[in-house]
């Protein structure tokens, strides 16, 4: 049997992470691409670090940061009534950090493809950065938005190292499908492990199929317009 509790927790985590990532990465990508960000290389490097860092390293730092020994950790614990580490909320923080580059990169690439003359036209017609982003850049970056959302979602479903470090393995609170798979293998339940692994594989594949088929639809719609 598939661990349905882990399945729903994983879906809930991925959905919440995707929404938060969209809220963070859209203004961040706009700042990086449309603004005259002097610190762009540093900001981009920081955002991209999870791509090259071992997940356990990121998980370790987050565990330290969110733990009771730091001011931030104590502040969060006071705010929520419980420590962030080894909780679902902590898992969300870890997932957002770890999936950030996967959600940010498509947006940076998509925003950069909006022709500069359209941004200038918006400026000449009195639009500020916010209106230019909302009325010009985002509608012309639909594929990038879709790619960002799907990659953030799919990557969160499959993450393991950060989740294990920051959340441990608490059923119903922090045990995601990838951790459930480890549990199943360690307890020799290969049938259940096969089903869990297949589910993770299919969900990743499905996300990519949706992404690429949507790209075709958007390209066809752009050509028709």
């Amino acid at each position: 049997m598939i661990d349905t509790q882990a399945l729903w927790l994983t879906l809930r985590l991925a959905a919440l992470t995707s929404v938060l990532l969209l809220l963070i990465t859209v203004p961040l990508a706009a700042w990086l691409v449309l603004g005259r960000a002097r610190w762009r290389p540093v900001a981009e490097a920081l955002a991209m670090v999870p791509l090259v860092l071992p997940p356990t390293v990121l998980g370790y730092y987050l565990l330290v940061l969110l733990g009771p020994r730091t001011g931030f950790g104590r502040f969060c614990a006071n705010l929520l009534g419980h420590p962030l580490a080894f909780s679902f909320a902590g898992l969300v923080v870890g997932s957002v950090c770890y999936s950030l580059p996967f959600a940010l990169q498509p947006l940076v690439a998509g925003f950069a493809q909006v022709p500069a003359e359209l941004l200038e036209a918006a400026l000449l017609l009195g639009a500020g950065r916010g209106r230019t982003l909302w009325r010009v850049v985002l509608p012309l970056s639909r594929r990038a938005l879709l790619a960002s959302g799907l990659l953030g979602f799919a990557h969160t479903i499959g993450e393991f190292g950060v989740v294990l470090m920051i959340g441990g393995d608490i059923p119903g609170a922090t045990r995601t499908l990838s951790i459930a798979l480890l549990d199943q293998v360690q307890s020799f339940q290969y049938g259940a492990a096969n089903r869990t692994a297949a589910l993770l594989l299919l969900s990743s594949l499905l996300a990519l199929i949706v992404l690429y088929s949507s790209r075709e639809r958007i390209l066809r719609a752009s050509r028709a317009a």
Partner: protein
Amino acid sequence: MSDLAVELEHRAGSLHLQASLTMKVHRAALFGPSGVGKSTLLRILAGLLRPERGRLLHNGRTMLDTEAGVNLPPQQRGIGLLPQGTALFPHLSVEENLRFGLRRLPAHERQRRVDELAAMLGLEPLRQRTPGRLSGGERQRVALARALAPRPDLLLLDEPFSALDGKQKDALWETLDPYLSEHGISTLLVSHDAGEVWAYSDAVIRMESGTVSACGPPSSMLSQERQRALRLFGAS
């Protein structure tokens, strides 16, 4: 009529732009061969490009003063620009493109301006179309309408008629000129077509190798151009 005072210097690649000019603009034209800095000068006037150094006064207001650290953003200059490539928003309909710069106006005034420009420039049947479904000439008319809609004090027109034939240009200008006069919009037209300059301007600024080489009425300027061309080909 717009008072324009320009004193600036800017380098970009092989171009070294040094413009010094004080004039009253009504229907002026910037004339000169390709690559002499006409479009660069327009972009500086519009506020899209900051020159290395210089001053720009429009109707007595300082738009730019690099020494004093003044550089008004494009939307505060009262200067509109119709770029060479039209730059229409491809995802918006013609009507939405026209409305884009009118957000701060009351709804009834927005509608009035869009209706007026659509009727004047023959855009009525195109209002719901997106730019991708328009011809080159139609796109230029939509871009012109969009640049006119906010009624800038000075409208910079960068090769605005390149997709139109002679008769279409004349017909468009005949419609446009009274509208510009009625709403007090001055124009500065960029062109390398002597016929356009002759027909649609009352003052010509000639540019050569990044500098303003002469300024005067079209008749005297074009006569000088003719003499230069004749000299070039060895005729007397």
